[in-house]
């Protein structure tokens, strides 16, 4: 088991003919992911080909779903069109829409959130995506949705959830180097309004029999990590390690991610770390010890 996606998941790529989308579609195909369709308005009928895999391109998500049976989409379209792309995926009845696009106006995401249908889960935007590692060499044969480097993964029993791409890679790489693999790694994105929260992912990891331990990576701004930690202290018996980035960030400044801004006394790194610890989560003091902190708590 894994969460959200597995090696059988049929994925369509919105924005497959753009350079960014095309590059990562190729990498996912090489990883062994079932990329079954592409969508680019006005380019329907083209074929996207890589390594002997032929991916048909459609004008609309609904026709791509109808023709290929795709259940998940990944979005690589520019910020001005990304809100529309998400809602097109919702309209087509997809189970999961993963939006990689960075820089979507908050007003657009606010409207998208208000129009979401509960049948579709949104992950992101401004996120690295989702990886369920495969059993092959360098974790090949898994499901790679988004922009994560596939080879750093290893199939195993640790669930990873994070707001930051490169910090996710750090945690995953640390785990893999220490010999511990991952069930699923979910990047939920660095924007102030996103589709899936730390708490949503924690609940899924809690219900997933393959996931035995969890790393949760957060940062300054908002209350998402605190909400997840409070829930976990009551409902999750699996060992969790946490890290919060931004202890040295000045108040009121946006630290790269649009959501990483300290607004009050409760969303500083120090306050979040304190609450995580109170909730029974092992807090990694530095980003260099995310995996080792988990293993210690896990008794490995």
């Amino acid at each position, binding site marked *: 088991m894994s969460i959200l996606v597995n090696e059988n998941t049929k994925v369509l790529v919105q924005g497959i003919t753009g350079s960014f989308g095309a590059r990562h579609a190729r990498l996912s195909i090489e990883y062994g992911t079932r990329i079954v369709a592409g969508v680019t308005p006005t380019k329907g009928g083209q074929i996207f080909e890589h390594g002997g895999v032929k991916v048909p391109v459609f004008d609309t998500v609904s026709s791509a779903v109808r023709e290929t049976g795709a259940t998940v989409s990944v979005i690589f379209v520019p910020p001005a069109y990304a809100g529309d792309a998400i809602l097109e995926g919702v309209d087509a009845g997809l189970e999961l829409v993963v939006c990689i696009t960075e820089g979507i106006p908050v007003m657009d995401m606010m409207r998208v959130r208000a129009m979401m249908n509960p049948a579709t889960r949104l992950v992101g935007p401004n996120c690295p995506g989702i990886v369920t590692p495969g059993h092959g060499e360098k974790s090949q044969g898994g499901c790679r949705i988004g922009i994560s*480097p596939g080879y750093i993964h290893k199939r195993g029993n640790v669930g990873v959830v994070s707001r930051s791409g490169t910090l996710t890679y750090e945690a995953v790489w640390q785990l893999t180097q220490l010999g511990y693999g991952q069930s699923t790694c979910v990047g939920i994105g660095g924007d102030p309004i996103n589709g899936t929260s730390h708490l949503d992912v924690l609940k899924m990891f809690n219900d997933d029999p393959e996931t035995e331990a969890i790393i949760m990576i957060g940062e300054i701004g908002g209350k998402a990590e605190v909400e997840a930690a409070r829930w976990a202290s009551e409902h999750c018996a699996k060992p969790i390690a946490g890290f919060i980035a931004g202890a040295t960030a000045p108040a009121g400044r946006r630290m790269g991610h649009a959501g990483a801004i300290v607004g009050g006394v409760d969303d500083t*790194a120090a306050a979040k770390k304190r609450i995580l610890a109170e909730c029974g989560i092992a807090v990694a003091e*530095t980003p260099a010890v995310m995996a080792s902190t988990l293993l210690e708590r896990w008794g490995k």
Partner: protein
Amino acid sequence: MNIHEYQAKELFDKFGVPSPNGRVASTPKEAHDAAKWLAVNNLVVKAQVHAGGRGKGVFKSGYKGGVQLVDSAEAARKVAGKMLGQVLVTKQTGEAGRLVRKVMVTESVTISREIYLAILMDRESCQPVIVASTEGGMDIEEVAERTPEKMIREYVNPLAGLQAYQVRKLCEQLGFDATARQFGRLLHSLYRLFIECDCSMVEINPVVVTTDDRIFALDAKFNFDDNGLYRHPEIAAMRDTGEEDPREVAASESGLNYIGLEGNIACLVNGAGLAMATMDIIKHCGGEPANFLDVGGGATKEQVVAAFRIILGDPQVKGILVNIFGGIMDCNVIAAGIVEATREVGLSLPLVVRLEGNNVEAGRATLAESGVAIIGADTMADAAAKIVAAVG
């Protein structure tokens, strides 16, 4: 992005949010003419800088007060002459202060009541929320802490927009009576401004009711969503780089995500989360970061060179830590970029490089063989300890 008070007034005028009559002036003569145009004797002259606490601020010339009441056009000219071209120090500017390039001359109003009013994007509910309080003109954080019951919150459904009943409710809670209709109009206009200009926050502290029952927005603070600025060139043009850290201005011109800090260890990192975490680990090892710098997932050699230029142009920097997790990128390409950048800018400070990821062995070899004095590091912890030790 911040804007000046006179620019906020331009937006208020455009959207029909009432604010006192006034004009901006760049010379004492213009200040005089603005006062003449206003044709009243009760006037205020205000220094235009991106910092609060102007009224209690002191100019480096010794002149006190960045907000002055005057009673004639001639007096407005004199006061403007004492402010323009001078550096104003307030509790928010730090010792360096800010150069005053413009003043605003407005009609001064007689206040009978002050209200706090803000609209901001609420992350938890994903909706705009109107925050209001009868305790206007005060430090609002203090009000929220001491008397939380005096903070009124009204959430707005983003698809339906602000409803008339919500405005009536707020008017009642804030105790508006004769002026309720005026306040209602102000609120509708302000909500429209918030949505249409992609604001993340607009705060008016205070909204005033005058003794002759008029309502005005007196002082405003705007925050815009940077992601939305592409569709508002007129607002993007309001950016005043003279008010910003020159290091940050240079970085934004090169497409780098940079924030200047107070320490002496510069860092250059790919990814915002990792960049923040790198600052944290420097601090954890006993050092102080000089900046936040995210070169992005697909950093080019040109960006690395630009980043080194900005870092080395900062006299407080005593050492540099480069922390790159090359996931998809080839570490060897990054290593070559670092070597070229150091050659181009002439490196004279300790430089620690931690490379990890795709083709890392080749990347490390490129650094080692370059002849550039680079201190290699295997892990993030190792890198932080080494740069802190090198800076001493």
